[in-house]
């Protein structure tokens, strides 16, 4: 049995896509009419339910979710375009259930080996909307639905045998819950990137040539329109598009001890116009380049325990990892899980000045579009704001349509990447502080903690690359948050000192009990989260947090020496000369 390992990373959109290019038939955009593919899916649901009705083991629920995407990306490095990609995809997910709500074919088999589960694969559909496309899609869905049905019947047999052989579960809740019928057809949207980006990216990417310590670097702009279509046997029909744009920069250097130092920064938007202009991107590039340059010279952070401030984004990731994953509903009934919070509803789990909600309905906060926003989840349930913690007291869990004891319906958090089974996932996790202080005051409080604890310094984490957490019973229920830049803060007035090479680790309950105060500076972390149901876009919003104590462990590092030869000279005016390579950038 493997531990439940949950990752949160910050890849660019393009990092999740195979490089591909031009596309199929243009699709109608803008009209709030059902896409032809939605009609095909609806017909396939109706046909399947009717045709299999008389089988010994008829399906009781069927949903066909279709995800169609159009994505564009453009990247540049060292003043030159590196890649131009355009990609069209359309995938179907089939959720066919036999049995009944109480017990169906998706029921977890206890003590089952890895090979006891039949594979689940995403169904590739034609990308166009013409008659041939729909005919081919209809044929493909028929074939795959038949396969799904036969697979479901086979698994149901195993489920019943497993039920008979194994002991009863602690949580006797049903396997699935009904949901209200929803019909909501919204206009299909598309994305585009203007030609002007080519010159902008060339210009911005040449900024890095000014920094001799930056070995690899790049600038990228991505756009994605992802249209979700859903038809199910309850009559639900949903069509909506999610549009995302991102502009990002990265810079990589290698420290003398071989550690790879990478800084990635980005700005998200829901329209092309919302993306940063060249000037802003240039500034972002300079900051990233300067940060890796500084990190290269920064001393290593040794293992340490002491007070720390997690600034906005870092605090968001911290909460996403150590709290957010543990309040996902399915973990409360899975007996392989650690179930940290399962029996703590109504109990104090956080300081009473902290509340936490997950709200996929909010579009933006702190001036930024949120990544975890959606109108309906992947099971066709309307997205809902969920109060998870109120003034420190645990209120509930994020729910898909898989009930748990005491909560028998979804709150609109069933999510997946195409090709995966749906589970409850986070959307926009928002940490709210009812008592907060300006950041400078929080910093003073940190210094007081350093003095009170007689520590040599405190720590401020101001940027992170991501993190992960283990939630299973086999392994320690721990987390790891991976900072990019950490500052030592001294009580004697010395300037803050940038350090590198440490990860923050801990266990959830202990760490929560160490939260002392919060800032008044909520920041948005936009990223994608990987877990059982694949990668889904998420946001985490949090103010800076002061922790009484946090533990640092050495970060895993690479061992390759920096390049033996200096970088080739850049053209006049583009970069400092090789001879200047050791000097500080302006």
């Amino acid at each position, binding site marked *: 049995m493997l531990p439940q390992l949950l990752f949160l990373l910050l890849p660019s959109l393009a990092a999740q896509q195979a*490089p*591909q*290019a*031009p596309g*199929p038939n243009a699709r109608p955009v803008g009209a709030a009419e059902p896409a032809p593919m939605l009609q095909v899916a609806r017909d396939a649901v109706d*046909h*399947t339910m009717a045709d*299999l009705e008389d*089988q010994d083991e008829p399906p009781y629920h069927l949903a066909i979710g279709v995800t169609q995407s159009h994505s*564009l990306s*453009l990247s*540049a*490095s*060292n*003043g*030159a*375009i*590196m*890649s*131009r*990609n*355009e*990609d*069209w*995809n359309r995938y179907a997910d089939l959720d066919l259930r036999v049995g009944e709500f109480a017990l169906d074919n998706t029921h977890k088999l206890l003590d089952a080996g890895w090979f006891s589960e039949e594979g689940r694969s995403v169904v*590739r559909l*034609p*990308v*166009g909307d013409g008659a*041939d*496309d729909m*005919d*081919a899609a209809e*044929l*493909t869905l*028929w*074939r795959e*639905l*038949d*396969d799904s*049905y*036969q697979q479901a019947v086979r698994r149901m047999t195993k489920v019943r045998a497993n039920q008979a052989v194994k002991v009863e579960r602690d949580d006797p809740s049903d396997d699935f819950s009904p949901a209200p019928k929803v019909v909501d057809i919204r206009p299909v949207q598309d994305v*585009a*990137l*203007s*030609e002007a980006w080519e010159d902008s990216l*060339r210009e911005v990417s040449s900024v890095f*040539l000014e920094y001799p310590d930056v*070995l*690899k670097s790049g600038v990228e702009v991505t756009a994605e329109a992802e249209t979700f279509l859903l038809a199910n046997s309850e009559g639900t029909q949903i069509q909506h598009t999610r549009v995302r744009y991102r502009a990002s920069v990265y810079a990589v250097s290698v420290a003398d001890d071989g550690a790879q130092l990478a800084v990635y920064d980005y700005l998200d938007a829901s329209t092309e116009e919302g993306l940063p202009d060249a000037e802003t991107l240039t500034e972002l590039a300079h900051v990233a380049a300067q940060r890796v340059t500084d990190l290269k010279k920064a001393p290593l952070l040794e293992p340490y325990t002491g007070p720390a401030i997690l600034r906005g984004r870092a605090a968001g990731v911290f909460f996403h990892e150590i709290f957010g994953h543990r309040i996902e509903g399915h973990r409360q009934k899975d007996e392989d899980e650690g179930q940290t919070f399962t029996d703590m509803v109504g109990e104090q789990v956080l300081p009473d000045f902290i509340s936490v909600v997950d709200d996929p309905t909010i579009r933006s906060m702190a001036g930024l579009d949120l990544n975890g926003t959606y109108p309906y989840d992947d099971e066709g349930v309307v997205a809902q704001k969920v109060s998870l913690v109120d003034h420190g007291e645990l209120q509930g869990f994020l729910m898909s349509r898989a009930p748990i004891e005491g909560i028998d319906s979804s709150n609109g958090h069933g999510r997946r990447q195409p090709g995966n089974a749906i589970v409850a996932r986070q959307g926009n996790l928002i940490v709210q502080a009812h008592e907060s202080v300006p950041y400078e005051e929080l910093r003073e409080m940190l210094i007081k903690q350093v003095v009170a604890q007689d520590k040599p310094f405190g720590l401020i984490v101001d940027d992170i690359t991501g993190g992960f957490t283990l939630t299973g019973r086999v392994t320690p229920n721990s987390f790891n948050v991976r900072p990019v830049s950490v500052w030592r803060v001294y009580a004697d007035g010395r300037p803050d000192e940038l350090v590198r090479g440490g990860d923050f680790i801990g266990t959830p309950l202990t760490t929560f009990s160490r939260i002392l105060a919060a800032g008044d500076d909520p920041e948005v972390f936009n990223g994608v989260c990987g877990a059982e149901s694949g990668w889904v876009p998420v946001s985490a919003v949090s103010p800076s947090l002061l922790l009484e104590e946090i533990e640092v462990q050495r970060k895993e590092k690479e061992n*390759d*020496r920096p*390049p*033996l*030869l200096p*970088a*080739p000279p*850049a*053209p006049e005016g*583009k970069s400092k000369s090789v001879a200047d390579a050791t000097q500080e950038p302006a």
Partner: protein
Amino acid sequence: MIFLLMNAALATPPPGLMPALESELERATTELKLQDEAPPYWVSYDVVDGEFATFFAEMGAVLSSDVVPYRIMRVETRAGDASYDSGNFDAFGESNGVLSVRLPLDNDETAFRRSIWLATDASYKQAVEQLSRKRAELPPSDPAVSELPAMLPAEPVVDLSGGPLPLDPEGVKSTVVYLSKVLSEYPELEQGQAAGRDWQGQRITVSSEGTRLVTDTGYTVIRVEAVLKHSDGSRLRNGRWWVARTAAELPPMEEMEAEVREMAEWLVALEDAPVLKEYLGPVLFEEIASVELYRQLAAGEFVGTPPEAQGRGMFGEAPISRPTARVGRRLMPAGWTVVDDPNAQEAGRYSRDQEGVPGERVVLIEDGVVRRSLNSRIPSKGAEKSTGHGRSMGAERREALPSNVQVSAKRARAERALRRKGLRMAAQTQNEGLLVIRRIEPPAMSEDMDITFMGEGPGAGLTRPYEAYLLMPDGSEQPVRGLQFSGVDRRALRDVVLAGETAAPVGVMDGPPGPERFYIGAVGGLPGSWAVPAVLVSELELDGGGGGDQRVLARPE
């Protein structure tokens, strides 16, 4: 949308690239050096610059449509010297001094140099480590390497006159869509897919030996495959494919369509075909099936590239390596000849291989006996120079691979003679008819994981027949289904009793003999061609089976 496609408008070579390669080569050979280690003694840059156009369609509908620019550099750095170096040693997955990196699409010398600089640095460090691993496991005094040079010699060449051949993405796309649409006219089929790729580009080689070369590179491939679910639940497949140097050299559409229809009709007719549960007796391979018989069983016998040298085993024991081409060995009956000619105007043609060596016509088998082997610059016993067959996919090592192969028999017979003789032999072995194999699935399309994993190993066999029938004594043909070969290996080629007349070349996509052939995918691999006559093999064993889940859900009207 901002993306414009650059159809064959590639400059040759791209401005700024040659100066960038030259500058970094100069630095690599004069300045690049780790303390206490020798500098690289050999460096080669190989830039492949072009466009991939890849399409998949099902029943007339596009599943994916990709046209992407491609500019990748393979850098290989060798540490050591000409007698013993870091090359050709199995590092068990460790980096070995050969790597591929993406180069900028813009023709920007500064950006080119940055990429080349970092790649060369990494390649050199890998080569130094690889050399130390090799020294530890296989010292220069080891007989396995002491009698061989590090690399077979090759004359440097300077020729920048090459360039890419025309790309026809729209033509290939429309072909793929049209041929898959043809399959939609057969309602008995439950799946009908076509895939195609047009890849055209230029290969730019700059090496420390002085080679400065631009050559064309690429291929066009179309594959069509259909699936029929038999009423007993069997999943029956059939396929067709065409490989050419460019899209313009593909057969006319009518010809391809006719073949696709023939393929579909064969599948549909299998609804009434019996499962042949076992067969032991003579087997007649028609020409297309013969191509697979010979390329799957024979190619490994005349490829001279040895496997990468192995290190010591867990207990310090010397490894046992499988011999490659054994000159002097009888592989086929007397009178048989096998020739490989990269200059033949077929799908596998090229003027120079990926190491810049001119492609040489090689008579591999004379009178059934292996006389010579195909070689790249990877040394092997008995080989004095490369025959110009060094090719690989991506950053793999340059192994010798067949290009355009012609197999012929001195005493060729008409097809009816093969059938008559085969029927007599079938009767003698108590078979009701002669088993005739018309087509065999190419390894790239095989779904048989057991064969895939066995590759060329002891349990290797032939992939499954796509089309087979029993030729009855009255001349009728009874299609049969569900067959797979059992225990077939290269020794079967000696049991050929009769051969047909000279055959036309058939384009194939291939990889190195072995498991890699199975992994190249529907449109990947390296192009080649095989011309093999129909052959009658005295005895082969095949097992058969059928059945499976039958469809429960009614197909929508």
